[in-house]
């Protein structure tokens, strides 16, 4: 099992003929994702990596039947239209990769997803990868790297940083700990799927026995995860790290989401909330793998997979 995606989900790629679209089509197909169609208006009839290209999502569906998910690689100003088009065509999951999508566009996407019973990940996300099953987005960069870096096991990974998502999985593997699904929730302040949403999905996934979460200063995602634990809605062992300990209040770093505003969203507040709820909070990033091994051992969970990464 896994969350959000697996090898059975029929997937389209919007913006398939662009530079990123082409490169990540190779990654997604090469890793095992069932990519059934690509979409670029005006380019219908072409092929990218053996994937037929259509002018619209609706045209793709007419030809290949219902699809489950879309990975969006169009320029930021066009992301809103791409997402709304997918939702209107009945697609229930969208992974929005581009950076710099205006926040009011994201709020309109949020409203449309809600109205259509759909979910989206991102924007500004490297995507989602269910180990040895499928990837949506650009996690791993190339299929061969993705196959080498990510190994199956019992741990779910959720991160607010893209680079860290791969890095965490790699270091966990080195420590002998494999993963179910790894997800980069996105670096922006408003995203479709947040840490608390991911925790609830991992809670329902029988294959996921523990979770590693990379949090950051700013916003309230980590505090909300602490509330889920306190309320008994998330019950699996959680190892958490909060980045940005040293950030000065009011300074915005390169993640739009990582801003400390007043007392809300501070490093201390997040760490305290998570610890009080019973999560294991690691102070040093480099210690995450060892602490995860310890937590798994104490919970009697076999680490599985791992160690095949170089």
């Amino acid at each position, binding site marked *: 099992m896994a969350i959000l995606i697996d090898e059975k989900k029929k997937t389209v790629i919007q913006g398939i003929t662009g530079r990123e679209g082409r490169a990540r089509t190779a990654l997604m197909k090469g890793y095992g994702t069932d990519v059934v169609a690509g979409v670029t208006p005006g380019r219908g009839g072409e092929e990218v990596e053996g994937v037929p290209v259509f002018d619209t999502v609706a045209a793709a569906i007419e030809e290949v039947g219902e699809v489950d998910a879309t990975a969006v690689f169009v320029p930021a100003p066009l992301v809103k239209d791409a997402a709304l088009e997918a939702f209107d065509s009945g697609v229930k999951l969208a992974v929005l990769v581009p950076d710099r999508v205006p926040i009011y566009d994201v709020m309109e996407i949020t409203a449309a997803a809600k109205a259509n019973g759909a979910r989206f990940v991102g924007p500004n996300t490297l995507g989602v990868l269910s180990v040895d099953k499928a990837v949506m987005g650009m996690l791993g960069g190339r299929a061969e790297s993705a196959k080498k870096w990510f190994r199956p096991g019992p741990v779910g990974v959720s991160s607010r940083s893209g680079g860290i998502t791969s890095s965490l999985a790699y*270091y966990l593997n080195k420590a002998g700990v494999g993963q179910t699904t790894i997800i980069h929730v996105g670096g922006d*302040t408003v995203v479709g799927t947040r840490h608390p949403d991911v925790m609830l999905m991992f809670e329902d996934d029988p294959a996921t026995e523990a979770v590693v979460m990379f949090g950051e200063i700013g916003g309230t995602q980590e505090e909300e995860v602490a509330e889920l634990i306190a309320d008994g809605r998330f019950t699996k062992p959680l190892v958490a790290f909060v980045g940005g300990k040293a950030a000065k209040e009011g300074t915005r770093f390169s*993640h739009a989401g990582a801003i400390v505003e007043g007392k809300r969203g501070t490093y201390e507040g997040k760490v305290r909330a998570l610890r009080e709820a019973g999560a294991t909070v690691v102070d040093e990033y480099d210690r995450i793998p060892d602490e995860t091994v310890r937590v798994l051992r104490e919970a009697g969970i076999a680490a599985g997979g791992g160690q095949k990464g170089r």
Partner: protein
Amino acid sequence: MARLYEYQGKELLLEAGFAVPRGGVARTPDEARARAKAVDGPVVLKAQVFVTGRAAAGGIRFADTPDEAATVAAEMLGADVKGQAVAELLVEEKLEIASEMYAGVIVDDAAGQPLLIFAGVGGTGIEEIAAANPDKVVRRHIDVNRGLRPYDGVNAAREAGLTGKTLAKVGRALVHLWETARRCEARAAEINPLVVTGAGEVVAADCRITIDDYAVYRHPELGIEVAREFDRPPTELDLIAYNVEKDDYRGTFYFVQLEQGYSRGDGYVGFHGAGGGGSMMSMDAVLAEGFKLANFCDTSGNPPASKVYRAAKIILAQGPIDGYFGSGSGVASQEQFHSARGLVKAFREAWLDIPAVIRLGGNREDLAVEILTGYTQSLPAPVEGYKKDDPAGFCARRLRELVDAWDYAKTHERLPEEPHDADYSFGTITGGTVSYDYGRCGECDTKVCIETCVPGILELDDDGCPRLNIPLEDAAKGKCTECLACEVECYARGDGGGKIHLPIPGLAEYLKARL
């Protein structure tokens, strides 16, 4: 910066139909006098700076006559309010205040919706006032497609306990505030205090609007110079860096100066991260070693070597830093030798005389570290390169050891620049120039430029010298990706015939002024 000055915000409110005090901006005492004359009554002069608590810091003063306004303005302009120099004043009518309220539209991250907050109480210390009067504070989410309708505003005012004419006026004002926020794509638009005057008018006495950085491109009317949120006006280097990034969409480059006015030996390092989370984690590691950050910088998202080069040049331009630290998440998807080449070019041009530790973990990391350390051997200071299996904490400790052992008093003579003839040259997408000295190229046995050119756009002519195998215009449009191989690899392994000039507008002037 994506924050608007009070007077800019009030202009937007006025356009939306909101009542604001009569007056306007003044940049000289004479302008302040003219503004006061137009108001024809007592005025308030407000320093236009991005700080809170202006009143206590002398940033808000009053004047009864136009001449007094000019005198007060002369004192305020150029003065310092909480560390910011005052360049502009808002001169407007002094309101006769009957009561104060608060109104705001902010983006609620958790809900992914705008949130209207209205409080029937307001003024300085709104957080505490609101907490003490929970029954007077109304919060309601706004459907971004539906918007706020007039009766929604009235209902919000009613829930906060308002009645009569004030209720109706506030209801309308809330709708105008929402319309303003939506039109300029504000992350937050707040009015505190929202004033009821003695005459019963509802007026915005202050205004704080922050624009979504990502939406600034579709709002040229706002005249925002740097689409980023700063808690201060951008520094000269911030602006130089922003202009590098502005027109180059390949990867991202973010730079913010955190400190100025320090000296060598104060423990400041130039920080060069890669990726938001990786940068933050690396920053924590370097701070844990007792260093302080001169700047925050992040080049990521598969940037070209030229972008990393420019970032490094800007970091080094800051002056008396004790060391240079680079590190990202450790397992980058991008091919890391591009970054290595960018750093090598910058370090060589700076004739690096402070220790540098760079963690280049990720795809092609072996090659990246080989380039970084192998090609910087002749520089005075040590440059160490690390990979994904070397933790950031370890790398930060290495920098600590190198800095502690380094003799900063010693001066290092620079190797003289060798003459270089541009016998063949072409332009690049960011205004750079690639040129070859055919005297050297003809003698060169390695032809390393051909082998290492990432886009493969070079070929040898009959004399064994490199030239483009594509039209010049195509190279200038981006086919030349500025991988920097034909300078960096050529210098290290060839005869030094290749040279790349990459302009950074304003940097030379900045450095000259600092000397």
